[in-house]
């Protein structure tokens, strides 16, 4: 991993990779969404609302996966002082918060016709809302540390922000197990390592949207990392020019 510690070497790979991830991701996402909307049958119980599955599950996966990425980046920043880890953590935060919000909103939209309510303070929904607030806290801390120059050379992420990212990861297994530990309106785990309880006729477009959204998320993170690295470069050059 330290092979990519050099920003120049990272950028050499990131520049072509951004397009290679973005366009196939978009194509897979649109194919999966179209198939989910127009090809798969309606569910015998939930009717057409089951089609929300194809956007709700990937957004939940990215919300949780995004914070896992922040925690790994924080660990690499704190333990190995990897120079790109803080940049990666900061680049993940906004898209992670966005997909967590999408998960909450699409879940709420799905809940109204299915459960008869927009919101219920149960384990799954509440822990997902906590994740969204954790993202907002992380973004606020990262912006504040960047403004005060605490994270210079680390993409604007101070050690305190990194520790926050690491500690917040405790919420990820809580979200995952919440439907098992507590009574919930939310269904139990329907896709596990042992298989899926969703019928194959409904399940297959989920593979397209899951991979499509993941590739798109990776492309967005790379774009944001490139933007942070370019801003760091501008700042360093301006300081050199100011010193004469």
């Amino acid at each position: 991993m330290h092979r990519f510690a050099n920003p120049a070497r990272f950028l050499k790979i990131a520049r072509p990779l951004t397009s290679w991830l973005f366009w196939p991701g978009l194509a897979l996402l649109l194919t999966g969404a179209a198939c989910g909307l127009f090809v798969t049958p309606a569910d015998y119980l939930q009717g057409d609302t089951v089609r929300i599955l194809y956007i709700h599950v990937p957004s939940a996966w990215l919300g949780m996966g995004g914070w896992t990425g922040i925690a790994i980046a924080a660990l690499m920043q704190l333990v190995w002082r990897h120079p790109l880890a803080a940049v990666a953590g900061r680049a993940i935060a906004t898209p992670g918060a966005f997909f967590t919000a999408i998960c909450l909103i699409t879940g709420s939209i799905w809940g109204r016709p299915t459960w008869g309510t927009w919101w219920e303070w149960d384990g799954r929904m509440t822990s997902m809302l906590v994740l969204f607030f954790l993202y907002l806290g992380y973004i606020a801390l990262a912006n504040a540390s960047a403004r005060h120059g605490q994270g210079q050379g680390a993409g604007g992420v101070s050690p305190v922000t990194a520790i926050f990212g690491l500690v917040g990861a405790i919420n990820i297994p809580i979200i995952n197990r919440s439907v098992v530990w507590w009574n919930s309106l939310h269904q139990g785990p329907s896709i596990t390592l042992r298989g899926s309880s969703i019928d194959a006729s409904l399940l297959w477009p989920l593979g397209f949207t899951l991979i499509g959204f993941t590739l798109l998320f990776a492309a967005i993170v790379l774009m944001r990392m490139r933007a942070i690295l370019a801003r760091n470069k501008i700042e360093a050059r301006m300081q050199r020019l100011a010193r004469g």
Partner: protein
Amino acid sequence: MNQWAFVIGAYALTLSGTGLISLLSWRAMRGAEARAQQLADRS
């Protein structure tokens, strides 16, 4: 209750939001890289 209204609302929000965050990230990247290149060319 028309279920399609909920489905279309959820998809419209997700796809337009994803498009917007992609566009904003791309613009931020292009803008910052162009400014960095300009500074590099000037010095």
